[in-house]
C-alpha cells in the first residue's frame, strides 16, 4: 500500500527560503566590494541629507577663515579664495550633486522603462518608430548636445538636468526593450493573455515586475554616470548654481589655483571619484545579485 506521504519528500527537499536579512548578509559576503561601496553611498546620502548638521558653516560664508588656508585641525579641508570652509562646502555640494543625480536618474530610468515597455511589448510599427527615435538621440554625442543646449538656453542647472534626463532615456530604453522582448514570450505572460488580461494589465502586472531588477541596476549606474556628466558640465563652466557643486568647486580650484591651493581641486575631485566609483561598483554587484542568469537560476 502506498502512503500519501511517499509523495512528499520532493517537496521537503526544496531549500528553505532565506530571511531577507540573511539573504542580504549572504550577498554582502559574496560581494564585499559592492558592500563597501554601499556603505560609502549610504554615508554620502546621509551627509547630503544632514548637511545643515554635519557641516560647520553655511554653504556660502566668506571670511570664515583666512583665504587659501591649507587643511588643518581648524579647517579640515582648508579654505578657499574667499576664506570659506572647504569641508562645509563639500558637504553642502553633496546635497546639490545628490539631488541632480537622483532626479535625473529616477526620471530618466522611469522614462526608459516606459519607452522600453511600449516598444518591446507592442513591437511592429510602434517598435520601429520608437527605436529609430532612440537611435537618433543616441547618435548625438551626449556632451556636445549638452554644451549646445546650455549655450542656447543658458547655464541654469535645471536646463542641464533636463537634458541629462533625456539622454538617460534611450540607453535604458534599449536595455529594457530587450528584456521585454524575452519576457513577453514567457509562458506566464501567455497564460495571462489566455485568461483575457489586457495589454495594460500584462505590461504593468507581469512584464514590469520582470524588468524591475534591470531598472534598479540601470538607475544605480545612472546615478554615478549622471553625477559625472553634471560635474563635467559644471567643470566646463556650463552649469551655474548659487549652491556649491563639486564640479564648480573643481573648476575654480583646478583652473585658477591648482598649484597654490591644490586642496581646492583635490577635495571635490576625490569626492566625485569616490562616489562615482561607489555607484558603479555597487551597480555591478547589484546586477550580479539580481540577474537570474548570473545567479545561475536559469
Amino acid at each position, binding site marked *: 500500500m502506498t502512503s500519501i506521504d511517499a509523495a512528499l519528500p520532493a517537496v521537503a527537499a526544496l531549500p528553505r527560503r532565506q530571511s531577507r536579512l540573511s539573504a542580504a548578509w549572504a550577498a554582502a559576503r559574496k560581494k564585499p566590494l559592492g558592500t563597501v561601496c554601499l556603505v560609502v553611498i549610504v554615508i554620502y546620502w546621509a551627509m547630503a541629507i544632514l548637511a545643515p548638521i554635519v557641516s560647520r558653516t553655511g554653504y556660502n560664508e566668506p*571670511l570664515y577663515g583666512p583665504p587659501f588656508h591649507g587643511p588643518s585641525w581648524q579647517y579640515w579641508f582648508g579654505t578657499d579664495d574667499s576664506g570659506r570652509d572647504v569641508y562645509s562646502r563639500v558637504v553642502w555640494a553633496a546635497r546639490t550633486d545628490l539631488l541632480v543625480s537622483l532626479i535625473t536618474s529616477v526620471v530618466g530610468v522611469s522614462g526608459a522603462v516606459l519607452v522600453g515597455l511600449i516598444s518591446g511589448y507592442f513591437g511592429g510599427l510602434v517598435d520601429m518608430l520608437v527605436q529609430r527615435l532612440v537611435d537618433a538621440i543616441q547618435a548625438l554625442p551626449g556632451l556636445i548636445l549638452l554644451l549646445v543646449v546650455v549655450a542656447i538656453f543658458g547655464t541654469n542647472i535645471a536646463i542641464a538636468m533636463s537634458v541629462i534626463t533625456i539622454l538617460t532615456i534611450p540607453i535604458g530604453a534599449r536595455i529594457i526593450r530587450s528584456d521585454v522582448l524575452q519576457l513577453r514570450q514567457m509562458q506566464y505572460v501567455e497564460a495571462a493573455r489566455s485568461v483575457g488580461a489586457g495589454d495594460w494589465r500584462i505590461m504593468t502586472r507581469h512584464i514590469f515586475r520582470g524588468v524591475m531588477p534591470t531598472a534598479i541596476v540601470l538607475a544605480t549606474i545612472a546615478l554615478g554616470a549622471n553625477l559625472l556628466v553634471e560635474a563635467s558640465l559644471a567643470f566646463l*563652466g556650463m552649469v551655474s548654481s548659487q549652491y556649491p557643486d563639486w564640479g564648480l568647486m573643481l573648476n575654480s580650484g583646478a583652473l585658477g589655483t591648482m598649484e597654490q591651493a591644490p586642496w581646492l581641486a583635490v577635495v571635490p575631485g576625490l569626492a566625485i571619484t569616490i562616489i562615482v566609483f561607489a555607484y558603479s561598483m555597487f551597480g555591478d554587484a547589484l546586477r550580479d545579485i539580481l540577474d537570474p542568469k548570473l545567479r545561475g537560476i536559469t
Partner: protein
Amino acid sequence: MSSSDRELREAARIFKEQQRQRVTKRLSRRRVLSGSAILAAGGILAACGGSSKNSSSTPSGGGSTAAPSGSATAAGGGGSTAGGEIPAPLASLEYVKKYNWRNLKWGGTPYIGGTLQAAGFPPPDWNLMTTQTLTQFPPYYNGLYYSALHAGLDLDTAAIEPDLVTKAEHSDDYLTWTFTLPQNVYFHDIDPVNGAQMTSADVKFSFERYIDTSLWNLPLSEVDHITAPDPYTVQFTLKTPALKFPDALALPYYQVFNEKHYDNQDKFKTQPIGTGAFILKDSKALQISHAVRNPKYWDTARWLKGYENAKLPFVDNYVSTYYSDIASLEAGLRGQSVDCADLEGQLPSVLEDLLKANPKLQVTTDAEWALTPHRVFLNWQNKYFSDVRVRQALSMALDREQIVQVALGGAGVAASSPVPYDQMGLDGPPALKDMGKYMQFDPKGAKDLLKQAGYEDGFNFTAQQASATVPSWMTLVQKFWKDIGVNMKIETTPPLGTTTALQKGTFDAVLSNSEGSVLGYDIDQVMRPMFGVGSAANYAKVNDSELNTIMDKIHSSTDPDEWTSLAKQAFDTFNKNQDVIYVHGFHTWYAAQPWVHTIANTYYTTIANYAASNYRNVWVDDTAPGGRGGKKATA
C-alpha cells in the same frame, strides 16, 4: 592753427610738475617744523628725483616737432633702470613698489633677429570693423597715434605717442585737427594692395569706414568730416571741441588700411595688409599665429639712445600662441616656451610661485588697470537703485580694503573710480579716506540710510555675472550686503550673457569683471558714454544731473587746467552719488623672460592689450633658449 600736440603735452607735463612741487613744499614745511632739517632736505631731493617723469611727444617719421622733453632712461651699454623715485602714492602699494616698471633694465644694446614667442589671442577673423579682439591687430597695422611702451616714457600714464603722424596741429577752438603724415610709409606687398604707398586718402578712407561701419565708432562720434588736402595731410573737423582728440585716435580700433583691401572683403577678413612692422603669414583662430618682419618697415628706434637709426622691428619672427588656461600658461613660462604673457587677474602668490621657479622672470605691475575695475552696475530703472540713499548704503556696506586683501591678495586698490588718477593730475591712486563718506566702510551708516529710504528690513534682488565660477570679490560683496539685510542672489550667465543684459537693460544688477567697459585714454571718452543720458553704453541708465553738468563742461573744455579741475569734480560727484558701485581696481601683471627687452605694462594697459603696437620695439637677446635670440647690434 596755433598749437601743436607737443605743446599740449608740455602743458600737461607742466601741470604735473606744479602738482609735484606743491607736494614737495608741503613735505618740506612739515619736516622743517619738526626740526628735522636733514630729513627735509632728503625729502626734497627725493621729490626732485621723482620729477624725472617724461611726457614724451616724440614725433613719428622725420617730422618737424621737437625731441622728447627729457628722458628718465639712461639707454645704451647693457641698459639701465628707468630710475627716478616711485611716487609716494604708488610706493605705498607693496606690489607696485616691488614689481615696478622702473626696476627693469630699459634701453641698452638691442639684438636684431630671432623669434619672439608671446602668449596672445589669434582672433576668429581679421575684420577690423567687426572683431571683438582688436588688440591683436596693431603689429600688422599702424594708427595715427598709439599707446607706447619703450625706454624714456612715463608708464604711469597712457604714454600716447604719434605713430603715423609727424606733425599735429589744432585750431584755437579745438574743432579742427590737422595731421601731417610721413612720406616713407608703404603697405605690405600683398595682393590687392601690393606695397602701395600710404597716403592721406588711406587715412581718410579708413576713418570714414570706422565712423560708418565699425563696431567701435563711439569715440569718433564727434567727427563731422575728414578731408585730405594733399597726399600727406589729413584734417579732421569735429562737431564739438576735443582737447584730447589724439587720445581717441590712439585706440587700437583705428588702424590705417587701404581701400583696395577693404573692397576685397574676403582678404580683409583673413589677411591683415597694413603698414605695420610685421606681416602675418598664417593664423589659426584661438590657436596660433605666425608673423615675419616687414622688410620695408618705415620706422626706426628713435627712442633708443645710440641706435636711433636702427630699423624696426627688432625680431624677425613674432609668434602669438593662445593659452586657454592659466595653468598651461604658467607651464609655458616655466618651460621657457613662452617669452612674455599678460597675467591679468592672477593673485600675487601665483606670480611669486612663478618667480620661485624662474627667479629671473621680469614681472611688472601697476596700481590698477585704469579702465577695467571690478564694479556693480545697479539698474537705475529698478525702484531700489534709483534711490541715491540705497546706492550710498550699498557702497558704505562694503569693506573695500578687506575685499582687496582677501579677493586680490592685496594686489589692488580700494579706491577705484571711473576717473583715472592721472586725469586729476595725481601721481597715484587717491587714498580711500579721501574719497568721501560714502566710500568708507560704515555698516551702521549704511543701515541708517536704508532705513531713511524705507528699506529698514532690507530687500532681495538678483545680480548677473559671467565668470564660470563666482569670483571671490563677488562673494564678498554678497556677504557685506547680506550683513545689512540686502540679499543678492548671484546668477551666472553665459560669457556674453551679461553684456547682452547690459545692452538690453534687462537686469537688476550686473557684477562686472570687465563687461561694459568703455575704453579710452581720457575721462571724456570713458565717462560720457558710460554715464551720459541716452548713451547706448549707459547700461545702468544713470541719470545724474550733477554729473551730467560736469561731463558737459569736460566735453567742451579747451583748457588743460580746467580739464583737470573738472576731472576732480567728476570724481567727487561720482563718489557721492555712487552712480555705479566701484568695488576696487586690481593690479595688472605682466611677465617676460629675462632675454626679452623693452616690455612691461602701463597704468592703462599691457602689450598684450591696447599697447600691442609695441611688439616692434621688443628684442630678444642671445640668451634665449633654442638659439632663437637675435644678434647684438652695432651702433
